[in-house]
Structures are given as C-alpha cells and as structure tokens.
C-alpha cells in the first residue's frame, strides 16, 4: 500500500486530492501564518495511546503551542475538561462542518470565519465527508478554505494531509510540529 492512497480502499475522491505533508514544517508554517486557525478534535482521539499519552493529549499540546482554539465534538468536552483544558467550544462534527462551510458564519467568537482548519480523531469516513463538503463549498473570498488532516490516515478530500502513518510515525510528526511551533 502506498502511503498516499486513501486508507479505506474504496474511498476514491476524484480529480482534486490533498497534498501530502511530507515535512511537518509545512503545516507548522501554515499554522503560524494563519490568522484564524481552528482545530476540530473527535472521540477517536481517545482510542490510541503512545508513550503513556492518548492522542487527545497531543492535540492539547499542539493547540497550546500553536495558539489554536479547539472545537471538541460529540461528548469530548468532558474529556478535555478532565485534562484541565477548556476547548473554545463544543459542537458536533456535522454542526461545525456546516458552519465552516458557510462563508458568512462569524466564528465561535463572532470575529469572523476561519482560514485554516485542522481535524483529528474521527471515523475515517466521517472526516472524509466533512473534508469533502469543505472542499466543495467553503469559499473564502475567491479561494477555498485550507483544511489539514492531522490524523494518521491519508485524507484526500483535505487540502493537505498526513500520509498513512503508523502510530509511532504519527507521534513523531505531531511532536515535531509541537517543537516547531514552540520555536517561534
């Protein structure tokens, strides 16, 4: 299997596919440049553990270092609170997806739409479809919203995506991003 094939074999996206993030500095730089980034985290961030930490813990560090507000989906707000971290908001995945699609939505803080959206922790097919909707509909002026999958599976409907990664490779990538964001 190539690292840049869709993780679920039959999910063939179409002509427009995500660029692969082969170096984490690409996405770290995007985060630094973004005026209004947002990180959307789902319940599967509780599923896997590495170095004694769950993926949600890495997402919290990433958000803190990158100064990115987090939207906790499903019942995840409680999990963030347990860890002493207050997400910017609790929305369901499809509710936040629908709002991010809308160019006129004013954001969680009323300050305007987001220009960079990162997602992690969802069933593959749910991310697939929400990324697809954002790809087709989330206009920002005359361009489309930039989306990034920081999960460990290649998501072709995002603008940018990690390739298919082992858990260890994923941890290295996220840790590397955290360091790059810290370096600022």
């Amino acid at each position, binding site marked *: 299997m190539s690292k840049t094939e869709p*993780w679920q074999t039959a999910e063939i996206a179409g002509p427009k596919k995500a660029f692969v993030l082969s170096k984490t500095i690409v996405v770290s730089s995007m985060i630094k440049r973004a005026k209004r980034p947002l990180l959307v985290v789902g*319940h599967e961030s509780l599923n896997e553990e590495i170095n004694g930490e769950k993926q949600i813990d890495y997402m919290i560090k990433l958000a803190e270092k990158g100064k990115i507000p987090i939207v906790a989906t499903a*019942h995840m707000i*409680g999990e963030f609170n*347990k860890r002493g971290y207050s997400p910017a908001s609790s929305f*369901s995945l499809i509710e936040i997806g*629908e709002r991010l699609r809308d160019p006129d939505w004013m954001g969680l803080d009323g300050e305007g739409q987001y220009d960079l959206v990162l997602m992690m922790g969802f*069933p*593959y097919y749910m991310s697939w479809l929400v990324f697809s909707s954002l790809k*087709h509909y989330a206009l920002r002026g005359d361009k489309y919203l930039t989306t990034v999958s920081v999960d460990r599976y290649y998501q072709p409907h995002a603008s940018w995506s990690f390739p298919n990664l082992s858990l260890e490779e994923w941890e290295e990538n996220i840790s590397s991003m955290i360091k790059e964001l810290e370096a600022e």
Partner: protein
Amino acid sequence: MTVKNVKLQIDELETGLGKFKGLNVTIGRLIEENLDQPLGPTPFPSITDLRNWDRKLLSRYPPFYLPFCDVCCLCTFGKCDLSQGKRGACGLDMSAQQSRIVLLAACIGAATHTGHARHLVHHLIEEYGGNHPLNVGGDEVDIDAPVTTLVTGQDPKTLGDLDVILDYTEQEVTHLLSCCHTGMEGDNIDFESKVLHAGMIDQVGMEIADLAQISAYNFPRGDPDAPLTDIGWGVCDTSKPVILVIGHNVPPATEINDYLLDHKLYGKVEVAGICCTAIDMTRYNPGAKIIGPISWQLRFIRSGIPDVIVVDEQCIRTNLIEDAQKIGAPFIAVSEKNCQGLDDRTNDPADEIVEDLITKKVPGVLILDPEKVGEVASRVAIEISPQRKKKGIFPSIEEIVEGSKGCRSCLECQRACPNNLPIPEAVKMAAEGDLSKFSSLYEDCVGCARCESACPINLPLHSYIMKSSEDRIEKEKFKIRTGRGAIQDIEIRRVGGPIVLGEIPGVVALVGCANYPHGGEEVAEIAEEFAKRNFIVTATGCAAMSMAMVKDEDGLTLYEKYPGNFDAGGVLNIGSCVSNPHIAGAAIKIARIFAKRNLNANYEEIADYIHNRVGAVGIAWGAMSQKAASIASGFWRLGIPVIVGPHGIKYRRMLLGRREREEDWYVYDARTGEKVYVGPVPEHLFYAAETKEEAIVLTAKLVMRANDTSKGRAIKLTHWIDLHRRLYGTLPDDLHLYVRKKSDIPLTMRQELLERLEEKGWKEREIPDPTLLKRMIRSEGG
C-alpha cells in the same frame, strides 16, 4: 371505499339531449368520500402539491451536502468534474447532483416497499379475495390506515381498496424517479422536496403492506401483550432439520409453517429467520425462531446449521448461494425480484424439484408460488438433513493458526473493513496461537465479509472471527416480543395529551438496519436510557432485534423488563420495516383523537401539528439501506427529526437547523396571528451523530416542541440537562435558547440555571399556539 375500472352499460337512455342506445361508460376510478370528515385540500397529492410545506421545512433545515466524490458518472457525457462550483455537461452543480442522488435512494426505498406491498396485496387478494376486511386492531382501532387517510383521503376497508391506493403510489414513484433523468430537475431544493414526497409515498406503501398482512394473516392487532419469542443463534434445536428464511416478504415463510402443521411435521422441523421475514414469521406464529438481524446471514449459514435456505427479497446478501453450496444446503429463491440466476421451477411438480435438490442435481431453484415453496422447503429439509449432518465451513482452530501464518501484513483487510477493525493484529496473534483478538472483533463485525474479498491470499477472515467466538455465539438465546402492529386508539387517548403538553417527554423510534459502528449493544443502551426516563420507546426491524440481544445481570432483555404498551416507559416492538408507519400513524392519530383535527387528505395541517407538538424522534443507529433513507424521508415530511449513526453520514446530506439564527425559529401564534420566536425546536431534521453519547443527548434535546407547556418543558429540560451533565460533563451552552419562562426551569435546578441564563442575557418570552401555516391563524379562518 374506492373502486377502479367501473363499467356501466346502458341499453337505452332517453334524456333531454336525446335518445341513446348501447351506451357504454368506463370510469377509471370512483372515489367515495369518507363521510366522517370532509375531504381535505390535498387528496392523492402530486409531486408539487405539498411543495410549499416542503420549502418551509427546507428553509428552516437547509441541506448540508457531503459529497462522496468530486464527479458525476450517471450518463455518457461523464464523468463530469463537479468540484468547487463546476457544472457538469448537463448543467447540474454539486448541490443538485447530491440531492439527485438522495432522491434516487429515496425512490429505490419507496419502490421497494411499494413493490413489496403490491406483491403482498396481489397474493392476499388471490388467497382471501378482494373483499377480505382490513382489521388492524378490532374495536380498539378506529383509524386503520392513518397515513393513507392523511395522504389520500381514503379510508380503506378491504384488501381490494388497497389495490387502488397502490396504483397511486406506483404512479408517484414513477414520476419521482423520472425526475432523476438527465436534463430534468435542476434545483437542489426542488430535488429535496421530491425526496420528501418519496418518503411520504414510502410510508403509504409500507402501511398498505402491513395492513394487508396483519388483516389476512391474523398478526397481533395492536397487542401490547404480544407474546415473547426466541431470538439468537442458539434458539434452534440443531438435532432437527432447520429451514432458514431470509428477507422481508413473508408469504413463503407462512406457507412453510402451514405445510408443516398440515402434515403433522410441526415441531419436527425448526423454522428460523433472519431480518424482517423472521419478525413477520413470529407475528404469524410465535413458535418460529429469529436468528438475528441482517448481519447474521453469513455467519449462521457458514455454521452449517441450516439445511435449506429460502430467500425472498430486500437486504439479502446477494451471493449467499455460494456459501449455501459450500455447506451443501439447497437454496430456494422465491421472489421475481431476486431470481439469483436459478431455473424457474414454479410450474414443475414438487416431487421433481425435491428430487433435484436432494440429489444435488441443481444447487437451487426459483419457485414463485409460495404454497409450493412451503412443500418443497419442508420436504427437502427433512430428507437432506440426515445426509448433511449440519456440515459447516468454519475452519478448525488449527486451520486458523496455520492460515494466519501466511499473512503478508498488507493491511488490505482492515482497509476494506467499514469499521476499520484491527484484523491484521488479530491475524498476527492468531499465527502465534492466540485467537482472543479475533474473538474480540465479534461484537463490532457487521458481517459484510469485505475483509475476505480484500485478502490477497483468500483467508476466510469472517469465519475466523466467528469460529473464535463460537462458544459464546452458540449460547446466544434471548427473548423478543413479537411485533404488535398498530397503536390502539385507546392508548392514544391516554397519552395524546401528556405527549402534546410535553409531560411524557417524548417518543423515541429506534428503526433501521444493523450497520452499527460498535455492535447492536448500543441500540439496547439507547433504548433503555429512554425507557428508564419514561419516554415511549418503539422499535422496528433490525433495531428491534438488536435491542433484544442484550441481557441485564438478571438475564432479562428489554422486552422482558419493560411493558409493551404505548405509554410512558414502554418498550414496543412494532414489527418489521413495513410496520414503521404505525409509529408515524401514532403521531397522526394524536392529531385526530386528541386535537380532533381532520385527517382526510389534510397532510400539511397535520404535519404542522406534529412538527410543533409531538415530541417524536427517530434513531436509525445502523441505517444502511435505501429503504432506511426513504423511511427517514417520510418522517421528515411530517416534521419529525431523525438521527442516524456515524455511517449514516454516507447518505451525503444532512438537514440541519442553525440554533443561533433567530430568524429561522419564528412561528405564527394561531390565536393572534403574531409572529413569535419559539427557539430552535426541534433543532435538526436529519443528523449523523459521531457517538452514542451524542445521539442520546441530542435525542433528549430534539423532543422539545414549540407547544410544550411549562411543566412539559421542565420535564424535557430535566432529562436533557441531566444527560448532558452525565455524558458531556457540562451544562449545555445553549440552554438559554430552550427556556421560555422561569416556570420552564426544573425546580431542583432553578437557582443554578437562572444564574446561567442571566449570563446569557436571557429574557422571558411568550408561549404561542404555534403553527408555520398562515392559514391556521384563527382570525384568518384557521
């Protein structure tokens, strides 16, 4: 009563116009008005008659499209790239294309139920005659066909009356399907309106099917105490011949039952079923057995327990005949919609067919005569069982270990699995002799066997999972209440008021298929959560089965613990897929019996009533099929929200409200005509939840309605807030949108919630007599 093809012949007629001889008059359809209530504005509505109502709903709940891919490939212009605002060669954009696909799915679903109903009615008229009376509840049910009456203005009384109504549903499905042709409809909202029409037609088709079979086969008639029966892998006595029936259309299964009874063989042969045919078979005879929902097909056949496999229609795995051959079980297809490439032996003598199947001259046959199916299946099972000796094809433990050693670690099995199950890990452990990981996958496996198709070295991975769990599976035996059918009028009289006022917090309908993200146990968990909270929990089809397949610490299932009546805290198995309209029918009957509204061809008014007053929510946690899509669409047009499990996002379109958009949540106060803000109730119409926790909390929220009294709203808020706190660990952030008056606030939470409301700048507001229809304002004659 409606009559079609009325012919008058008049030999001689003298009138003021002149004298006529040999006059023949043919009338296509004669409709008799129901004299109890006047005929409403939309009898037999066309695809545009309810368009205005649809547009009201769709402006509140605009579609949110989630395209599978960037292209359309439905005609030879294509493939067309529709990404990012592009249009295809026909002119369609992505939104129209997505809504077109949703319409196609809804049409397939509606056609399937209508076709099912047509076959049933045709067969039953042949058997029982067109004048056979409809009877779904005896004296306890006055409104036999609430959906049909609401849609068409007809009150069918006989099987023959149903025939006429099916003409209408078939016509509408044809029109709707034609709208999907290249160069027809071009506007996504009009496509969506047609989706809702397809859903409404689907409800009529299903209702007709169930009315017909309840009436002719004497299924339970709205019986809260319908008998308990057995469900699970372990329910069959494997020392006996076993006939397995799969599908949805029950006549052949009833004929098997009758043949065995008539020939004093009943009890000597086990008759077991999978999917809705199983449910309906137990409505016919509670002594029949249910194996499980659709995901049990491959696993049960591969066990070798069935001696004969009979498949009718819908949701059947389409290559079952291959596995049937592997276990040496003859295969009988019984529906013209599902011929399986088999020779049609309908007109051959039964002796010849039996001989050919027993001697394995043919692997299977097509028999389109249910009575003959009854005889052939029974005789073949009895004769072949001793030679088959229940030979299955599960590998031995040693074979699993050896097979696993050949794994190339390509990960294709996991990449093919809908639930991303860690099959490679299980294979790796199995190669070392440890099958525990395979066993742990059992609950989450949806039985699709895509892992096997993907495996480059052809490991039978689905069988590996089942063999590893064999000890547990063989003991699976649970109790399910047989499908009760309609809700009695007397039950509606008792609960109509408390539901409309909000004092019974809601009606939760668990429906649909078995494409669960984490097994069927979650359905039981959702059901019990609401039963314990005094909601009314209804269930149909695979969800009704999955709910039964969990026991508590005392060894009891939900159907044993909770009563089967339509009242607070009841857990009701309504029946099979085609029984779903009894749930919609209960909401419709509330409008008639409690509020005295006219049902006859009065769809818009009743949908408006239900949307604003009846706190019903559908949950299709494992929704998979096009039928599930059309069933949901039927609920949407009545303004009833539906939540699907995470796989349901693949229906590619949600209908979402925006709670913060105040302008979307105004209604007319029917008393004054003023426009009044009522808050986002219900907030969404179609919604895919990521987790069961999300679905549970959202359900408690979606039962709120604009008409709730303060007492009712306080009860609903209590449940929502309590669940939110328990499952999310917080108070809801949008609470202020759902509290209208201080008296809405649950007493025990008053101080805390008032503080929270003050932070949000909350102010008290009026509770109107809500309607979305201007014509319902009383000063305007409503």
